């Protein structure tokens, strides 16, 4: 029987025409906060890893010459520069606070379901608060 492969499963051709609905909003709303924080830790980790070469480049530019240093300072004060800085800082804060939460879980804290959910909310709220503070302080 002819078939197509979808999500690693062999599905008969006759069922191919069935539409697959992916309602991301609904999927997120049904996920516990701990799952969202877990995925967020991965996504922010990937994002921060991609930003690492930029960090090294900025480090090099800042040290290379007085002109490079000044260029970097004025870039960090421009509107696009501030937006990039705030997004990076928010990602960093989210990764840091959810990471501290995972270290706590390794040590046996916040393991029960209630505390796991509470600590996930606290990590997310702290990261958001730091991002807002950082945006205002820039």
């Amino acid at each position, binding site marked *: 029987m002819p078939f197509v492969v979808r999500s*690693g499963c062999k599905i008969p051709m006759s069922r191919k025409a069935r539409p697959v609905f992916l309602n991301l909003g609904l999927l997120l709303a049904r996920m516990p906060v701990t799952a969202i924080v877990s995925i967020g830790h*991965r996504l922010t*980790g*990937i994002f921060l*890893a991609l930003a*690492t*070469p930029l960090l*090294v480049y900025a*480090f*090099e530019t*800042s*040290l290379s*010459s*007085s002109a490079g*240093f*000044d260029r970097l300072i004025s870039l960090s004060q421009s509107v696009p520069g501030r937006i990039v800085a705030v997004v990076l800082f928010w990602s*960093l804060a989210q990764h*840091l606070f959810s*990471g*501290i939460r995972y*270290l706590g879980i*390794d040590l046996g804290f916040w393991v029960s379901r209630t505390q796991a959910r509470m600590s996930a909310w606290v990590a997310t709220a702290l990261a958001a608060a730091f991002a807002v503070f950082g945006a205002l*302080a820039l």
Partner: protein
Amino acid sequence: MSRRASGLRAWVVQRLTAVYVAAFTVAAVLALALGSGLDHGEWVSLVRQPAVSIAILLFFLSLLLHTWVGLRDVLIDYVREPTLRIILLSLLAGGLVACGLWVLVIILSLW
């Protein structure tokens, strides 16, 4: 099961580097926030101090090791095709080593 195959070493490396990267990042953000009036000369002489240079090198070493364990896990979880997985893992390793050497060159050029 051998100690290498257990994944315990990667687990420990990820946690230890996390602690150093977190501590350094908090210190660096605070230092940069407080010393925002710094000019280029002061910045270079700060980074040139042996303790600061070593702390920065250790930071990037920890960061790249942490990134290796984290992205290696992501690739192993989501890329099922063995050849593509090997290619991506090799590219990742090459990129991270290149970043590390780049930082080393930057620091050494100040000395």
